[in-house]
């Protein structure tokens, strides 16, 4: 199977290039990550990519696969058009080859205070939720922060330093919607900004590529709706 892989080492290379690999796959090589590991083991151990859980849970191996962001570990080789073009997540600074710098992404994640805020004294056992309240978090808590959505969002490409991007905004709603959280007002106030939230044009690229089938575009609309409700 033929692959064209983006190669670039900032500082060492003057410009990025696409390197061709022809790989003889083994019968049990079913996912794209298997092929990348085969290249790494048999042809070129200088090729850099991230991986960890190899089952779509850790979110490490997000990359651009034939023009579409996805996780290499849960992308079937059988469905890929050849040559398979692999590039780093668009819009993110490249550290090396397919490895991108996620520093800003996680700083933005930290900025929305991704934890339940409740200054009241803790109850003796736990802060309970009804099944209905818990159900409000479905479709939100499953996000693995792979950044496939943010890396496929033109608004995030143009303003990555100020727009929080779909992944972080989905996480923001996860805590806004949490019945145990007491900081909903401050959270919404923090997001009422021309850049942090309102750069979203609702084109739904994020929803289109989410490997966990979540809907960040809907989450962003829900945040706007909740903001609007605070006015009346």
């Amino acid at each position: 199977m033929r692959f064209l892989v983006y190669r670039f080492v900032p500082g060492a290379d003057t410009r990025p290039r696409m390197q061709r690999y022809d790989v003889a796959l083994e019968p049990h090589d079913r996912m794209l990550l298997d092929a990348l590991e085969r290249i790494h083991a048999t042809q070129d151990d200088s090729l850099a990519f991230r991986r960890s859980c190899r089952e779509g849970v850790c979110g490490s191996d997000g990359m651009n696969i034939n023009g579409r962001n996805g996780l290499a570990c849960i992308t079937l080789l059988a469905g890929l058009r050849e040559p398979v073009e692999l590039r780093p997540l668009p819009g993110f600074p490249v550290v090396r080859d397919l490895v991108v710098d996620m520093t800003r992404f996680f700083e933005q994640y930290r900025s929305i205070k991704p934890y339940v805020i409740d200054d009241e004294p803790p109850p003796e056992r736990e802060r309970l939720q009804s099944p209905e309240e818990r159900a409000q978090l479905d479709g939100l808590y499953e996000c693995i922060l792979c950044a496939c959505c943010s890396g496929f969002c033109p608004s995030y490409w143009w303003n990555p330093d100020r727009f929080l991007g779909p992944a972080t905004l989905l996480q923001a709603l996860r805590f806004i919607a949490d019945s145990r959280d007491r900081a909903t007002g401050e959270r919404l106030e923090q997001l009422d900004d021309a850049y942090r939230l309102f750069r979203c044009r609702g084109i739904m690229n994020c929803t289109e590529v989410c490997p966990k089938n979540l809907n960040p575009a809907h989450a962003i609309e829900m945040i706007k709706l909740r903001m609007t409700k605070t006015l009346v």
Partner: protein
Amino acid sequence: MKAIPGALSAWLAQRLSALYMLLFMLYALGAWLLARPEGYGAWRAWMLAAPIRIPLALFFAALLVHAWVGLRDVIFDYVHPMALRLAALGVVATALALTAIGLAPLVLAP
């Protein structure tokens, strides 16, 4: 009702102006289908008639608001150097203001 803060107001203005324009256009299309004004004089009379005049003025106001928020957003997205951004916003504001001045006689005509 609390004061509408920050960016939410612009987003709401864009959504509400779009909604108003849609409703007005549906109404206008319906009215024209039922009784099509023949010729310039009939058009003019229809537009200046009491029941349509204020909704029409509001339509143009909504159009200008909608255009301002939309073009402002495009400039925020793509024009990053501050001097260039202010200049672009100035051009858009001037163009919309001139459009408003151009439309005023239609709405304010005796």
